[in-house]
């Protein structure tokens, strides 16, 4: 069991899944589901290996760091893989009955490609390889958004593609500068040889700008809502829950390991932008009339929280941000699936006349409610634990204003979530005939929402996992 290279399997299995689904489109649903289960098993295997032996470094081709490419799995990447696996499995189950045959023949290969890209990205320890995986991820996401076929889905996909390419090229220019300054593209070697120089600061600026554009932090978030809202539901779920997080993970990795800074000025800037994103996203989410747009703007707001950890830069702050990332991924996927079920059932997702639909879908509303509890940061959810850690970090580092942003953001989230949940308790009878929602769709949403709540009850294990390989530095855990 020890010597099986789980890391490689986690990447290659979805690729094999893609090829299989592409070759026989008629059987793409069973093949896709089988591949999804396989990937979950492989991630579990890798997780067990990392827990047993600590952080794993795997030299591809046997050449070792400066020349070859290394795969590196520590606590941070393991948790990202785990959340991708759980959300991915939920989305796969949801999509078995969401797409009609014509579209699902293309959904599965693209979705498997995206999953392979995510797993490769979370394991890669080489910044050029990260560029290739980032590009693979971007193109797959764009193709998936365009799968919905409507005018706004296509324009959303086009704008997303242009933004994604711009971000990638800016990132690549940063990689070029770093390579030509230090003669290597491996993260560990760069961290070792790193010293501040104009080339490094420019590279950091370019790479961060590129990644911020792809993570849709406040001023650069304009492309996210139309793309995420007009995409088919499983795609919106995986975009908001996973794809946007991948570029955040890369930013986190670079800032933690390569860029020579404590919580310096750029960190404060990111924190400020994050704070504005929390408030701006929340306000706009409150004003939306369509449910999926509301959830998309809620993503913009919740992403703002993640960046609050940059100015604080203590190990608790990083852990809080990562914990929020995990619970947001689960909760946001569940929310989008619930919205998808409502759309599937009632044919529309206008919030104003949601009540005719909501009260006849108890499971879906329960899923939306539970996911809402987690994004509000109310106990007993993962969101609460994350909010607690971030609040604690804010007070311990003396930067109490972030705590105020966290509290205000929580209230704003509560406002727009409970505005929607309120519609479940009405007496309006159903006026138009509706399409029954298939069972896997409702239960997948509920399962992910419950996972978000369970994340709040069993916090010590993920927090212990975060310690492996000390991605967040060594200072006191508490």
């Amino acid at each position: 069991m020890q010597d099986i290279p789980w890391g490689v399997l986690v990447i290659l299995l979805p690729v094999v899944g893609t090829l299989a689904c592409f070759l026989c489109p008629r059987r793409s649903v069973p093949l896709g589901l089988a591949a999804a289960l396989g990937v979950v098993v492989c991630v579990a295997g890798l997780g067990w290996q990392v827990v047993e032996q600590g952080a794993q470094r795997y030299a591809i081709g046997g050449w070792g760091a400066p020349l070859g490419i290394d795969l590196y799995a520590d606590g941070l990447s393991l948790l990202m893989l785990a959340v991708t696996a759980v959300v991915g499995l939920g989305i796969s189950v949801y999509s078995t009955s969401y797409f009609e045959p014509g579209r699902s023949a293309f959904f599965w290969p693209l979705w498997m490609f995206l999953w392979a890209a995510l797993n490769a990205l979370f394991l890669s320890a080489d910044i050029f390889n990260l560029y290739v995986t980032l590009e693979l991820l971007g193109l797959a996401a764009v193709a998936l958004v365009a799968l919905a076929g409507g005018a706004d889905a296509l324009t959303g996909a086009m704008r997303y593609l242009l933004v994604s390419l711009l971000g990638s090229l800016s990132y690549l220019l940063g990689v070029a500068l770093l390579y030509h300054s230090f003669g290597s593209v491996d993260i560990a070697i760069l961290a070792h040889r790193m010293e501040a120089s104009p080339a490094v600061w420019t590279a950091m600026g370019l790479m961060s700008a590129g990644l911020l554009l792809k993570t849709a932090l406040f001023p650069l978030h304009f492309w996210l809502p139309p793309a995420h809202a007009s995409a088919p539901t499983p795609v919106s779920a995986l975009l908001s829950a996973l794809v946007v997080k991948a570029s955040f993970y890369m930013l986190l990795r670079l800032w933690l390991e390569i860029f020579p800074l404590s919580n310096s000025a750029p960190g404060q800037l990111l924190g400020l932008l994050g704070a504005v994103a929390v408030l701006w996203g929340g306000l706009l989410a409150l004003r939306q009339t369509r449910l999926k747009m509301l959830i998309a703007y809620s993503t913009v707001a919740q992403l703002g929280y993640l960046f609050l950890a940059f100015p604080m830069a203590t190990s608790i702050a990083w852990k809080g941000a990562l914990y929020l990332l995990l619970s947001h991924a689960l909760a946001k996927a569940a929310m989008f699936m619930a919205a998808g079920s409502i759309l599937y059932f009632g044919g529309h997702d206008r919030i104003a006349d949601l009540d005719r639909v909501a009260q006849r879908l108890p499971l879906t509303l329960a899923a939306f409610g539970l996911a809402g509890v987690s994004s509000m940061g109310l106990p007993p959810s993962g969101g609460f634990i994350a909010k607690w850690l971030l609040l604690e970090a804010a007070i311990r580092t003396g930067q109490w204003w972030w705590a105020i942003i966290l509290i205000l953001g929580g209230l704003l989230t509560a406002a727009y979530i409970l505005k929607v949940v309120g519609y479940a308790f009405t007496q309006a009878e159903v006026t138009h005939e509706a399409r029954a929602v298939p069972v896997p769709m409702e239960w997948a949403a509920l399962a992910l929402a419950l996972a978000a709540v369970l994340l709040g009850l069993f916090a010590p294990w993920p927090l212990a996992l975060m310690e492996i390989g000390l991605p967040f530095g060594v200072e006191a855990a508490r």
Partner: protein
Amino acid sequence: MIWDDWLPLLIVLSSLSVGLVIFFLPEDRVATRTGLNLVGALLKLVLVGFMLWGVFQGHQYETRLPLLPGLDLVLRADPLSMLFVLLSSVLWLVTTVYAIGYLEDSPHRSRFFGFFSLCVTATVGVALAGNLITFVLFYELLTLTTYPLIVHRGTEVARRAGRSYLTYTVAGGALLLAGTVWLYAITGTVEFTERGFLSGLDASLHPVFIIIFTLLIGGLGVKAALIPLHGWLVQAMVAPAPVSALLHAVAVVKAGAFGIVRVVYDVYGIDFAAGLGVTLPLAILAAATVIYGSLRALFQDDLKRRLAFSTVSQVSYIILGIAVVGPVAAIGGLVHLVHQGVMKITLFFCAGNLAETLGIHRISEMNGVGRRMPWTMAAFTIGALGMIGVPPLAGFVSKWYLGLGALDAGQDWVIFILAGSSLLNAGYYLPVLYAVWFNEPPDAWSDERYFGRHETAWALLVPPVVTALLTLAMGLLASVPLSPLYWARIITTLEYLP
């Protein structure tokens, strides 16, 4: 003995599991749902009784689950939590019987009873919480689980009441969370300890502790319906009777008051709080609420709104008892926690009966109703008299101790507050009693329902009578061991005497 570690968790889980099962019960399975409800309530009562006996023997019960590195989810049975958990489990059984009768064939009952059980789970969790983070966890859970109960009917009025309830309580929850995290970040611990854990820290932190105190009291004050934050309570009257009974007599309002007691006793410690000078403003605020609540109650014609305002003022007795720094007043305040619960629930049950059987909502329609529904109105009378503080009922015992405590603590102004509010209580209860018994009944009630020989369904009649008898018993047999007064004495001896 492993039993010590898991009993508190079992008590919390007993109603949680019942609730989760009921959620998935189809609507027409009435028998199973009723059975489940009753079994859950009885099981909890038995477990609480067992724990009560154990604590009486000096046994230590504590469940400790890892929540965060350095922070545990702690459920502990100490005398203060026994008082509240006893109250909530007894009244939950009675209210379940009442709710089954009240919601005879109304829609969404599985959803109702599911959230009903979750709500009591949260209340018991609040009671048994062993540290501030567990308290906050269940306190917020209480907000989430009571919202669906308030908006159960789905009418526009109910949803507006639900919205206002949420704005108050979610904002309050945010304040409470901020205070808790700040406290934890400074002191490194949030465990409830006898006489508080803040007295030892250096004096430079005192202004910070005062700010944290205001945050905590602000958060808890919302549910304890202190003056500026009580708006939601009156609007939430629109909920079905069992909900307002449970909410206002047992769960929500008591959780707030209980929280304030916890913060003053087990976080700050009464002497440290007095030293900080925060108890006097709290006492003044509580006193103001007592008077304000009673004044507003005078002018309400709708029966349930009058009862709601009476709750606003009565709950502040508890806080007043605590804030008046003195053991005897503390006993009065603590024992009122139980007495007010039992008396107020009787009144709400009777209000529900009137609305359900005779369609009466306003006090002006209650003339001569005593003849039509003698048993209900008898219970109502006992409850009302108890509220005024007429001996030998439970209300008298708590007001007696409060008065004595105020005297020996040298806070004479409290006496006038107590006297004044008792007068006001009489002012808004006696006319109702007079109208009920001595006025001529109208020839026909608005929409009367007949139940053969009985005045109303047995499920609606038995609970108020039972709670009325309880009020009487707690008044007469006050000093019997295991009575609420007995527990209140134990708590205050732990807190005050060195």
